[in-house]
């Protein structure tokens, strides 16, 4: 599987996810050095650094590309810093990919790292910022992120008959997947009762339905196919980025999405047939020239257990309203036809925002290389990631070998 828009993933690396409160660049350095070692590329030979920003760590986080380049030791590489909330890592990869495909550079480091506060995320910036929609949703409504996760969960229950046990089963599945993942923060097998006995946070979602916020870092070294050929002698068996889908919505965005207070109006322009979160993966499929039937595994953004079920439908694994059936049939469990979140997902990692979309790609690479010890999806050749960054940032990456 190749075309003239492929780039190669030479190396990947992560710092394990956890909660230590250290300087986020410490984690980033560990991930960067692991990715460089995996790629067998020297830092001084990297020509472009695409950083995914963190907004909760002051100025160094806003200029992540420069921050990491400086910490690794200025080497003359050009830098960029991308912010797209949870999609920041995909946007950074998109930036590096565009530079490589345009011929402006041959080899790039893509990197994201975060240190997160405890508890609910609150608006960044402080003070009374009455024109900031993020401030408005907290002040006027108390609409935390889990409120939005819960709206989608409740809709699945009332529309499709999803149950609290279905949601819990997603956590149970992912907790088993992540048990042997050395980078996962939570490596404890959960049973249905653990989830159902945890306190309700935003009805119907319970504490164990909702992902934690974590510290962590992920990085990868990507390059042109020419560079890969010179570096390795050939490109046999290399993981390739086939597509990066970073689509924004098309008006009217008729689904109420985090962090909006209202949807767009469908009074004048009808809602598009394919809604935004359905377009994210399909834009990637179109770039790669494949369809959902070609996918061997998926890493999707399980900010909540119920949102993982939504993603089954958004990425085309089943029709709307059928995700619970797919889960119950075991299709999305390792050993099934299309395992979802073989890494353990956010259920086992918690979210380290700028690192998360990159970590999804790292997992695909380990899986496609057959290096995912203890959680291997046998014979996997093609994988997809999907996630959604606040304020309309789609993120879907297809990797194949």
């Amino acid at each position, binding site marked *: 599987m190749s075309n003239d828009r492929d780039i190669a993933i030479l190396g990947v690396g992560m710092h394990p996810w956890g909660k230590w409160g250290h300087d986020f660049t410490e984690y980033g350095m560990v991930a960067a050095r692991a990715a460089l070692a995996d790629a067998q590329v020297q830092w001084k030979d990297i020509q472009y650094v695409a950083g995914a920003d963190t907004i909760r760590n002051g100025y160094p986080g806003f200029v992540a590309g420069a921050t990491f380049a400086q910490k690794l030791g200025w080497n003359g590489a050009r830098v960029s810093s991308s912010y797209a909330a949870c999609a920041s890592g995909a946007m950074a990869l998109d930036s590096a990919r565009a530079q490589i495909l345009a011929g402006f550079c041959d080899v790039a480091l893509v990197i994201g790292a975060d240190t997160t506060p405890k508890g609910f995320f609150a608006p960044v910036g402080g003070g*009374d910022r009455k024109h900031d929609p993020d401030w408005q949703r907290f002040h*006027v409504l108390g609409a935390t992120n889990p409120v939005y996760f819960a709206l989608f969960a409740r809709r699945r229950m009332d529309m499709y008959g999803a149950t609290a046990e279905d949601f819990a089963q997603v956590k149970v599945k992912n907790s088993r997947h992540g048990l042997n993942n050395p980078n996962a923060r939570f490596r404890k097998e959960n049973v249905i009762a653990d989830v159902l006995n945890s306190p309700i946070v935003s009805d119907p979602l319970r504490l164990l339905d909702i992902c934690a916020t974590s510290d962590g870092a992920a990085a990868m070294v990507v390059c042109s196919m020419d560079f890969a050929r010179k570096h390795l002698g050939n490109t046999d068996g290399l993981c390739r980025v086939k597509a990066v889908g970073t689509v924004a919505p098309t008006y009217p965005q008729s689904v109420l999405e985090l962090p909006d207070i209202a949807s767009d109006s469908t009074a004048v322009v009808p809602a598009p047939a394919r809604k935004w979160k359905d377009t994210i993966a399909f834009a990637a499929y179109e770039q790669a020239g494949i369809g959902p039937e070609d996918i061997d595994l998926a890493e999707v953004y399980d900010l909540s257990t119920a949102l993982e079920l939504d993603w089954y439908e958004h990425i085309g694994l089943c029709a709307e309203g059928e995700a619970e059936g797919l889960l119950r049939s075991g299709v999305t469990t390792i050993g099934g036809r299309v395992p979802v979140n073989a890494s353990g997902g956010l259920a086992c990692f918690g979210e380290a925002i700028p690192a998360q979309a990159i970590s999804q790609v790292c997992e695909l690479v380990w899986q496609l290389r057959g290096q995912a010890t203890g959680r291997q999806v046998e014979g996997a050749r093609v994988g997809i990631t999907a996630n959604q960054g606040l304020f309309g940032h789609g993120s879907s990456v297809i990797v194949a070998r």
Partner: protein
Amino acid sequence: MSETLSRVPIIDGWFTDDIDAPTLIGAKCSQCGTFVFPPRSSDCPNPNCDSITLDPTPLSRFGRIWSYTENCYAPPLPYVAAEPYEPYALAAVELAAEGLVVLGRVATGVRAVDLKVGMEMQLELDVSHRDADHEYMVYVWAPATPGSEAAQ
């Protein structure tokens, strides 16, 4: 409600202060007719329309629940939580005429267990919180009064 506190909206310009029949204040494009909430005075969001001007317009008081939830823990600042904290519901309500889904708190005392997707709701005003001088009012969704226009 205290007699000495002055009653002010929690945010300016989003809803009327008619305590018996409040409405949300949206914006309507003078050219293509699409609606926007929260309100703003310029820049139609319809990419097929180049209008700069949006006019304030009252939105329907009645709609149906798109989805709902309940906050079992106090949201962080800038939400001002009562002490002791009382869980409250939120609902996203679909307004048929405007084609909008609007998120709001649900009236005090109405909990998630009382709600259902598709249920008819109406707009009311409720006290959000108080400080030494003010009583801050917020729009809330409440189950529609039987026989109201929502049922039609």
